[in-house]
C-alpha cells in the first residue's frame, strides 16, 4: 500500500486512553460498530451514486442563512 497520511480518530491520545481505559467493558458495542462498518463498506459502492464524483462536483448551492 502506498505511503500516505491517514487520520486515526479512534487513536487520538494514547496517554489519555491508557489512563481511562474503559474500552474493554464496551467491547461488545465496539464489535457491533465494527461489524456494521464492515457491512457498510461491503455495500457502499452500490449505495453511492453511480457517478458520485461527478455529482459532488456539480453539487453547488446558493448561500443561505
Amino acid at each position, binding site marked *: *500500500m*502506498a505511503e*500516505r*497520511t*491517514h*487520520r*486515526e*480518530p*479512534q*487513536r*487520538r*491520545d494514547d496517554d*489519555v*486512553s491508557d489512563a*481511562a*481505559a*474503559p*474500552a474493554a467493558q*464496551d467491547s461488545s*458495542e*465496539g464489535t*457491533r*460498530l465494527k461489524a*456494521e*462498518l464492515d457491512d*457498510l*463498506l461491503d*455495500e*457502499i459502492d452500490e*449505495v*453511492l*451514486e453511480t457517478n*458520485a*464524483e461527478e*455529482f*459532488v*462536483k456539480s*453539487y*453547488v*448551492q*446558493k*448561500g*443561505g*442563512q
Partner: protein
Amino acid sequence: MAIPKVCGIETEYGIFVRGAENDPVAASSLLVNAYADRLGSRPGWDYEHERPSSDARDPDLPSPFGVGDPELESRLVNTVLRNGARFYVDHAHPELSTPEVRDAIDAVRWDAAGEEVLRRSVELASRHLPDGAEIVIHKNNSDGKGNSYGCHENYLVDRQVPFGRVVNGVLAHFVSRQVVCGAGKVGSEFPGQEPSAVPFQISQRADFFEEQVGLETTIRRPIVNTRDEPHADPMVYRRLHVICGDANMSQVSTLVKVGSTAIILAMIEDGALGDELLPANPVTAVRQISHDPTLRATILLDDGRRMTGLDMQEALHEQALRWFDRFGPESVGAEAGTESLRRWGEVIASLRSDDGRAAAWVDWVAKSRIIDAYATRHDVAPGSPRLRAIDLQYHDLRPERCLAARAGLEDVVPAEAVLRAVDEPPSDTRAFFRGRCLGKFAESVVAANWDSMVFDLGHDPLRRVQMSEPLRGTADLVANVIDESSTVGELLERLGA
C-alpha cells in the same frame, strides 16, 4: 430562576434537481406547494410582528439591510403544518421550522418529523417532474465550494437577564460544543485556504464565521446572533437565535446540541455559570477546534490559559452537574434535562477515553470512521472526490442513498413516535393550539405565525387570536374547548377571544 427553555430548530436543506433544469427556488417552491396541496387547505404565513432587523444590543441601531428586510421579501412560498411547524422557501432552499417544543427530546422528535416531511414532499413533487428527473435533498450546511446555509436553534430566554451576560455565558459553549455535536466535513472552505489543507474537520459551519457578535445571518456571520425578535411578549422574553450549529443526522447529536445549550442558558439565568472559560479569540477558536479532529488543538482563553475544545466541554459539563444538583432540571424538562446531561457526559467520556462508542452518537465521528475505513480499504488519498461524495451522501435524505442511516447511529425517539409527529403538534406549548386548529378548522384559518392566528368566521372582519405566551394554548388548557367546539365562531367565543 431560569424560565422554561421552550425551543425549536429551523433547517435549511440543500436541494438539487437532476434530469431537469436545476432551479433551486422553483424546486423548493414545488416541494412546499406539493406538500401543502396534499393537506387540502393552505393557510399563509402572517408577517405581522416579524422584525428580523431588530438588534438585541440596541433596538435603535440602523438596519444593516437598509430599507425593508430582504429576508422577508424572499419568503414567498410559505405554509403552516398540522404539527405546528412552518414549511417554506428561504434563500433558494426549502426550510422547515419545527413547532415550539418544551425540551430537547421533543426537539429531536419534531426535527426528525421534519426530515419525513421533506421526504414526503419530494415524493409528492416527483409527479410534477419530467420523466427521469428527481429532486435530491441533503440535510447538510455547505456544498463544499464555499456556500453555506443554516440550521438554527431557538431558545426562550428571560428578558431580565442582560444580553451581555448571555453573550459572555454562551461563547465558551458555542466555540467548543462542535466537539460533541459537529456534523463533520471533508476539506476546508475557509477563504484563502486550500481545501486539501484540512482533510477532515469537525464542523460543517466553522469556516463561515467572521464575527463574534452581530445581527447578520447570511454575510459576516456572527457566532452569537443578536436578532431580537422574541415571537412572544417582548417585555418578558427574548428568543436566542443560534446560528452557529450544524444540521445533525444523528438523533443523539441533536439531543446533545439542544439539551446542552438549553442547560447552559438555564445556568446563565440561574447565575450558575462563570466566565472563566471565555475564549480570547472566539472566531479563530471555532476554526482551530474544527480543523483538528484529533482533538489535541488548544485555544487561548481570555485569562491566558490554553484548553482543548474537549477540555472546555468537560469543564462546562462539570459545572452543569453542580447546577443540576442545586437547581434541578425543571427549566429544561425533568426527563429531557436529565437525559441530555447524561448523554452529554457520555459523549465527552467516550471522546476522552477513545472507546469507540461515540461513533454511534456523534455525526463527525461516525462520518470520519466511514471515510477512514473506505480510504484504507480502497487506498484513496485524503480529500479525494470519492471521499467528498461519501461526505455528501452521509446527509442524503433518500433512504436508498443515505449513509447516515447505515452508520449504526443510535436513535433517541422511536420511529413510530417520529411518524406520529408529522401530523401531531406537541401537547405542551402553544403549537398545540396552532396545530389542532389547522387540523380541525383548516378552512377557517386565513394565516398563522408563531404568536398569532387569523380566522375567517365567514362574516364580520377577520379575527386575530394573539398567542404571546409560548406555554399557553397547550392540550391541558385548550384541548377540550377545541374538541367541543363545532365551529370556529364557537371556539373563539368559548376562548373569549
